[in-house]
């Protein structure tokens, strides 16, 4: 398992001196996960700035092949989930993007992948990393998602507090500043910390009842991108994502209507669906441990019979 930088970009990137006129490059990472929040955010940014691919993490030891093409008896192609690096030059700095179609299932492999990402980042002189993901909360799908921000060093707290529409773990009632970030987004923060590289995880809020939904949640990606755009001083045209978010919202409403009409659901689930259909409560707090337990008990009931593909 290793990271492979493409030939033509490799020499160029390595040859650049980030210590002279330009600041160190910034790395933004987005992997597939709940609501495809991170993947959609970084993938959209990649498209908007037309970032160019310059390398990838070789997938073979991390992932199973997802598709083979056999034509006339010959293996033509074996496709694996990609974890690809892109770059784009801004006025004052270089932007590095990492778009991962999948996360390793095994935590040791996830750690190894995070280490490889850091190897590449350090090789290119990167001293700041942002990862983007989802935070599952009791927010409502009609509300603007906030962005939970977790830095990997106390020195970054002052800076993070200045980000708009952002919340720290300590500002969430009952959390006392404690929590858990699972998966690559969390591991990357830890590996970066051990290597003295600054990193911040930005997590867009996703309503708890949509965490297992088969569609993306672009509203949370928009929130994450708004924060990133502000940090990087970039004006981003997010109209495409807003359109997508509107469609998803209609889809959610239709699903809730259909569920409300279903007869076989337990009374407790029906009451919850009615509450969701009526709109969000005025002050949505974080998800508590008790709520989490109840949600996990009933999440299957909410989406029974719903199928589809994450896009």
């Amino acid at each position: 398992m290793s990271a492979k930088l493409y030939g033509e970009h490799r020499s160029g990137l390595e040859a650049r001196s980030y210590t002279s006129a330009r600041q160190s490059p910034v790395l933004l990472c987005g992997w597939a996960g709940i609501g495809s929040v991170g993947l959609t955010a970084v993938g959209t940014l990649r498209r908007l700035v037309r970032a160019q691919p310059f390398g990838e993490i070789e997938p073979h030891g991390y992932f199973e092949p997802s598709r083979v093409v056999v034509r006339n008896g010959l293996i033509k192609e074996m496709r694996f989930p990609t974890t690809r690096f892109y770059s784009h030059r801004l006025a004052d700095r270089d932007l590095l993007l990492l778009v991962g179609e999948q996360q390793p299932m095994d935590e040791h492999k996830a750690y190894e992948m995070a280490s490889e990402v850091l190897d590449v980042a350090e090789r290119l002189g990167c001293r700041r990393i942002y990862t983007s993901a989802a935070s599952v909360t009791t927010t409502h799908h009609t509300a603007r998602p906030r962005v939970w921000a977790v830095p990997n060093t106390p020195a970054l707290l002052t800076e993070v507090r200045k980000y708009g529409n952002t919340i720290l773990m300590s500002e969430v009632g009952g959390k006392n500043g404690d929590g858990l970030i699972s998966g690559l987004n969390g591991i990357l923060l830890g590996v970066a910390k051990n290597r003295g590289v600054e990193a911040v995880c930005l997590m867009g809020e996703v309503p708890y009842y949509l965490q297992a939904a088969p569609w993306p949640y672009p509203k949370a990606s928009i929130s994450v991108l708004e924060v990133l755009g502000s940090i990087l001083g970039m004006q981003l045209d997010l109209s495409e994502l807003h359109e997508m978010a509107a469609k998803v919202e209609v889809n959610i409403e239709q699903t809730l209507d259909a569920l409300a009409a279903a007869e076989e659901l337990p009374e407790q689930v029906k009451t919850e669906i009615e509450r969701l259909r009526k709109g969000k409560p005025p002050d949505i707090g974080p998800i508590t441990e008790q709520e989490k337990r109840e949600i996990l008990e009933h999440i299957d009931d909410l989406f029974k019979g719903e199928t589809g593909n994450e896009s």
Partner: protein
Amino acid sequence: MTSSKAKPAMNPDVNRAAMDAPMQGQTQGFASLRRAKLFRFTSEPRPKKSSFVIGWTKDIGAVSPLAADYLIKAWGGSDFCQIEPADFYPVGGVTVIDDVARFPQSRFFSSEQKPVVILRADEPQSNRYEFLNAVLDLAEHYGKADLREPSRAETLFTINGIAALTAHTSPRRVFGVFNDTATQRKLQPLVPADANWKGPPHVSTYLLWLAGRRHLPGVSLWTQVPFYLSDYEDFQSVKAAFSLLSLMLGWDFDLGEIDRLAAEQNEKLAQLESDPGIASMIRALEEGRSLDRQEQTELIEAAGNILNR
């Protein structure tokens, strides 16, 4: 692995003769394999430009395991090595099937009579990339003419069944999948049908692709199994795969036992004709017509009732 002594096999029923066999040339042998620590050798046959045949334990129509078993039996094969299971299979306990405890296995067999190494294995459940590359390490090692030769490999064969809307009374077609054009040109005249497929790869196809990356020529033989025999041993399909493999290897086999078992099974399945409805479904399949879901279910149940007796 650096020890020059044979280590005891993990399973008590490991071939004793193989365990007692003299170890030859270990210092230049398996210890030099890239993933030597993943293997547990009980003896070390000399490399002799061996072809490699893979038989997975579970398969449609039991084609893969039966073909491997017949090869081992036909050539007096004995096991000489296993892949340590802990990295690739759940090893938290044993499963009990038909009153007998089962544990994941991946055994390599060699033959004194023919230059062939056969892997009889359960499909790995995790770290498949590492497992399959370990298999290819061994294939390259035994593909050498002798230990002084750099790693090379003879052809790798995988054998599998594939469920098809065909009748048990029809000949079994065998499809070939190759991992390079040179092997395809060489062997394709022997394979009656080309395969086309887009979708998730079977472990055999993954192995074949990895072999191709290591310039190890390989072919997967996919033998049609009537869908209603998928959960049973389909000896006709085994015979079709076995016959084709013997053509490709250029070696003769005594097919007497498979013929007998296939005939016995056909005799049983002939009872399906006593039900006019089932008989008409079989005619439809013979004529290349499809069956709807309900008909397929009925045929599966009817075949099961006969074969489970």
